[in-house]
C-alpha cells in the first residue's frame, strides 16, 4: 500500500512539475534573452487562466484547443508589454526593472479582481474527474494530459530556437547583444518576440493548469515565486533547466508533503533552492558563468 501511495504521489509530483516547468520556461527564456526578470510572471499566468474561463464559458472550448488562442493572446500581451513599457528598462538597474514589473503585477492582480471578482473559478471538463488505475496506482488523467501537452509545447519551443532562423537570431541576441546589432538584427523586435514567446509559454502553462486547479486573482504572486524557485534551481536562462527544475520541485513538494507535514511542503522547495544556490549558483543545468 505504502509503496503504491508513494509511487502515485511521486508520479503526480512529476506530472505537475512538468506543467510548472513550462511556466518557468517562459521566465527562463525571457531572462536568458532580454535579461529582465519578469516579476509579473505569475500574474500573467492568472490572466491566461481567466482567459481560459472566459473562452470556456463563452465557447465551451476544450482546454487543449484553447491552448492555441490563449497562447496567442498572451503572446500579443507579452509582445506589447515589451514594446511599450519594458523596452526602455532593458538597461536600467535590476531594482528599477523589479519596480516596474511589481507595478505591472499590482495593476494586473487588481484589474482581475475588478473584472472577475474575488471568488475562485474553475472549469469542469468531461475528463476533470477521470483517473487511470495502474495496478492500484491511481493517476490523475487531467494531469497526464496536461503534462504531455506541456512537454509538447516545450519540445516545440526547443525546436523553434534550434531550427528556425528567427530562433537562431534570438539566440544570437542572447549570446552577444552588440554582435547581433552589428550584423543587422532588429534586436528590439527580437526582444519583443522573445517576451511574447515567454508569455505564450505562460499562456500554455496556465491553460494546462486550469485542467487541474482553480484560479483566483490573488494567486499570481505565489506562481511568480514558484517560477523563480524552479528557474533558479534549474538554471536561470537554461531551457532544459526549467523543465528539470520544475520536475525536481514538483517531486520535492509532493514527497516532502507526504513524509512530513503537507502545510510545510513549499518549505522543501526553498530548501532545495538554498542548497543548490551556493554550490551551483548557475543552477543545475545552467552553464558556468565567468
Amino acid at each position, binding site marked *: 500500500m505504502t509503496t503504491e501511495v508513494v509511487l502515485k504521489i511521486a508520479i503526480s509530483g512529476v506530472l505537475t512539475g512538468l506543467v510548472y516547468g513550462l511556466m518557468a520556461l517562459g521566465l527562463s527564456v525571457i531572462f536568458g534573452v532580454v535579461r529582465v526578470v519578469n516579476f509579473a510572471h505569475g500574474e500573467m499566468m492568472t490572466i491566461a487562466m481567466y482567459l481560459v474561463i472566459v473562452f470556456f464559458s463563452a465557447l465551451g472550448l476544450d482546454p487543449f484547443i484553447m491552448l492555441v488562442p490563449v497562447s496567442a493572446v498572451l503572446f500579443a500581451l507579452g509582445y506589447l508589454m515589451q514594446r511599450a513599457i519594458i523596452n526602455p528598462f532593458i538597461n536600467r538597474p535590476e531594482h528599477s526593472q523589479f519596480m516596474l514589473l511589481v507595478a505591472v503585477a499590482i495593476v494586473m492582480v487588481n484589474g482581475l479582481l475588478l473584472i472577475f471578482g474575488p471568488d475562485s473559478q474553475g472549469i469542469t471538463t468531461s475528463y476533470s474527474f477521470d*483517473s487511470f488505475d495502474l495496478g492500484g496506482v491511481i493517476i490523475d488523467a487531467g494531469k497526464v494530459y496536461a503534462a504531455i501537452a506541456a512537454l509538447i509545447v516545450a519540445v516545440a519551443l526547443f525546436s523553434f530556437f534550434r531550427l528556425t532562423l528567427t530562433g537562431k537570431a534570438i539566440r544570437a541576441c542572447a549570446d552577444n547583444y552588440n554582435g547581433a546589432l552589428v550584423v543587422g538584427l532588429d534586436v528590439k523586435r527580437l526582444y519583443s518576440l522573445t517576451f511574447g514567446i515567454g508569455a505564450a509559454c505562460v499562456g500554455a502553462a496556465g491553460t494546462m493548469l486550469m485542467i487541474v486547479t482553480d484560479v483566483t486573482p490573488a494567486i499570481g504572486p505565489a506562481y511568480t515565486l514558484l517560477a523563480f524557485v524552479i528557474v533558479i534551481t534549474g538554471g536561470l536562462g537554461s531551457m532544459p533547466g526549467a523543465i528539470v527544475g520544475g520536475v525536481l520541485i514538483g517531486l520535492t513538494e509532493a514527497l516532502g508533503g507526504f513524509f512530513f507535514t503537507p502545510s510545510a511542503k513549499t518549505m522543501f522547495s526553498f530548501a532545495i533552492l538554498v542548497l543548490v544556490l551556493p554550490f551551483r549558483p548557475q543552477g543545475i543545468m545552467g552553464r558556468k558563468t565567468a
Partner: protein
Amino acid sequence: MASKSRISRRTFTAGIGAAGIVAGTAPFNIISAQGAPLKVGVLLPRSGAQAGIGQDCQRGVDVTAGLLKDLKLPALQIMNGDTETNVEVARARAERLISDGAQLLVGAFDSGQSTAIAQVAEQRGIPYVINIAAAPPITEQGYKFVFRNFPTAGRILADAFENQIEIFKTTGNAPKTAVFMHVNDTFGTAMQKGFTGVMGKFPATPYKVVETISYDGTARDLSVEVAKAKATNAEALVMVSRLNDAILITRELVKQRWSPKAILSMGPGWYEDQYIKTLGKLSDGPMHFAPWYDPNKKLAKALDAALAKAHPGINMNTNHVYTFEALLVAADAYKRAGSADPKALADAIRATNIKDNVSHGPGIQFDAKGQNEGLRNSAFQNRGGKLVTIAPATASNAKPEHPMKPYDKR
C-alpha cells in the same frame, strides 16, 4: 428621550411580528425623534487575499437597511472601509472612519485585522462589534468597547461533537475512524489546538482520529494531502478548511477514487455557493458543523428573502448572517441608548438582549468580556444544491443522510 428609549425591548420584539403590517404606529416616532442615522464604519477585507470572503460579508451589509426598516429600528449610515487584507491598512482605515465621524465600528472577518481595529476602538472609546473572527484572544484582553457576536473555536468544536453524536444516533450507523485535515491558518490552527481537548469531553463521539494532516490553504495542488489521508483508510474525513481548498480536495477525492462515508466539516468551504456551483452533484453529502442560522427563526427567513432578492442564486451563509447581526446589534443599541454617545452606545450593547435574531441559539447577549457565549452552532448538509439543517433537532428542518453517496455512483 429617556422615557421613549425605555419602550424599546418590548415594542421592538412586537414590532418584528408586525413587520410590514402595522404601519404608522408608535415606533416610527421613536425613529424620527432619534434624528440622524447612526454612522457605522464597516471594515471588511474586500481586496487582497481575503477579498472573496470580505465581499461576501458585504452582501450581508447591503440588505441590512431594508430589514432594519422593517424591524422599526433606527437607520444606519454605512461607511465602508476596505482593509485590503492588511493589518496596517485595517488600523489606518479604522482611525480614518472614526475621524470621519463613525460612531460605531463593525468588522473585520479576520482575527489579525480585528485585533488591530479593536485596539483603535478601545483607545478612541468607540464601540466595535466584531462580525466574524474566531481567535479567542480578542475578547480576552479586558476591552470595554469590543463585542463579538461570533462563537470561539472551542464553542464551535463542542457543538460540533454534540451534534455529531446526535446525528449518528439517528442514523444508527457511524464511522469508526476519521482523518482530521485542517488548513494551517488562524482559524484552522485555533480549531486544531482545541480539537483533542474538546473531543475528550465528548466520550460518545463514535470515531477515533487516526491521523491529523495540516495543509497550506493557499496550496495550488492538494493531491498529496488527499493521498496521505486516503492511505489511512479512515471511514470519515473531518475537515477545517476554506473554500478553494475544499473544492480542490473534493476533486482529488473523486480522482483518487476515495469516498469517505462522511465528510464532517467544522468550518466554511463545503457549504459555500461557489462550492456547490463548481461541483454540482459532487457537492452533495458533506455535513457542516458551523456557526449558522436557525432556519425556523422569523428574522432568518426575512434575511434569506432579502438576500434572495438582492443577490439571486446566492445561498445565505455564515458571512451574511453574522455581518447582518453585527449591524442589528448596532441599530438595536442605538435605539435603546437614544443617543450616539459612544459610552452610552457601549453600555447599550452590553445590555443587548435580542431574542429574535438569525443565528442559532438563545439570541444575542454579551458577557462581561463582550463575548456572546450563548451562540450555538448547527449541523447542516448539502442536499441537491441546497443546504438543510439537520441538527440539533430543535433547530433543524431535515433528517441527516448517512453514509454519503459514493462519488462514483452519482
